[in-house]
């Protein structure tokens, strides 16, 4: 039958700006993905727990607070601790280039900054975790 690509869209930490997360969630939906949205102010523990319970293919982290280095490394650390090696992690938000280099070095697949067409993000995830839909 159908194997849908499942993506968790997560908002960690204290920033309450989720317009970007919602726009991206909508774009994934329109591309036929199943999107699970966590809501605001999630801890890394809650995000990783949700990713495991929902058996997602990818986690998209939206973060505008500046705490990206900390949040991503916490999430990646928890995934490792739970021996999860088949969930891709990507991100969006206002993140300086130097930090992007660092984040990619610890295992973040890609960062999509402001102004990225949603099609690019959708295509990237589809190419990476595609199951043919």
């Amino acid at each position, binding site marked *: 039958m159908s194997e849908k690509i499942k993506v968790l869209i997560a908002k960690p930490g204290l920033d309450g700006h989720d317009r970007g997360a919602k726009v991206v969630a909508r774009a994934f939906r329109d591309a036929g993905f*199943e*999107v*699970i*949205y966590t809501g605001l102010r999630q801890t890394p523990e809650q995000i990783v727990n949700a990713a495991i319970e929902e058996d997602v293919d990818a986690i998209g982290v939206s973060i505008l607070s500046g705490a990206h280095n900390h949040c991503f490394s916490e999430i990646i650390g928890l995934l490792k601790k739970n021996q999860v090696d088949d969930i891709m992690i990507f991100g969006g938000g206002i993140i300086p280039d130097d930090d992007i280099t660092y984040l990619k070095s610890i295992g973040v697949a890609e960062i999509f900054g402001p102004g990225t067409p949603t099609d690019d993000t959708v295509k990237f995830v589809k190419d990476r975790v595609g199951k043919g839909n």
Partner: protein
Amino acid sequence: MSFDAALVGRFIKGDKRACSRIVSIVEDRRARYEEYLDALQPYGGGAYVVGITGPPGVWKSTLINKLAAQYLNDGKNICVIAVDPSSPFSGGAVLGDRIRIGDIGLNPKFYFRSLSSRGSLGGLSEATLDIIRVFDAFGKEIIIVETVGTGQNEVDVMQACDTTVVVTMPGTGDDIQAQKAGILEIGNIFVINKSDRDGVERTLRELQTMLQMNPLNDKYEIPIILAKSNTGDGISDVKNNIEKHRSYMASSGWLFARRSERNARDFKKLIERKFIKYLDSALAETPEFMKAESSVKTGEISPHRAGEKIFEYVRKKIFHLTGE
């Protein structure tokens, strides 16, 4: 794809990731998913399944969060399965029921899974019943199933669950009139949520009138509970009434009857699905089918006549049956 016995082994030991993966296999109807369900069968049977249904926006998710928290307080092992609608255009979905989980999300006895309805129109997805079986085998004592926001006809929940709770709110008077042939018949418990809002007396009166005419009400008095799921008011009442209905179901023999019926129905549906899948692939490339299909498309022959022809073809050439 091969059957992964090690995955089942991890599941039986209580590994959450193994459970999540098996739920996905079953949800996607991946190759050999039936073997997983078969392997898990001996571990199930202990769960009690509660369905929560009602129109969109009556705070079902918030009510479920508060209800699950109370069961967790009692030390129960809980699972929530929440179904949200899929897009009729892209087939995709945004599943947002997790937003209301709150503090209980990380409780080790709690498990939350979101499902897309995947085009199914009965308020649940086609695989929901099988996913309930997976969580039952995983040792969940209470499984709460939240349907998509429902209107009139989404009555699958009654067939999948042991107790059905219908949630509504004040000010839906006209809606209730419209619903009376549908979901009003399937509730074992009614909740009027947001009960501090105007019009609660009227909604209560209308529900009472409606229930007096419900034949089920003669055997078991269907309760109507006033609740406010944002503050938690009335939630313990909901829980107590679920437990009360549960004892009634067990002592009256209804629980056994309902579950037997459910198994039989599931068995028939499975056979139907298997045959349809088999016939789809057996017919797909045959000249008989392709010719009939193109004639139907151009209007040369009616779909009914073409259907009869193909049915005869299947009977004689695929099943090698003779006679009438």
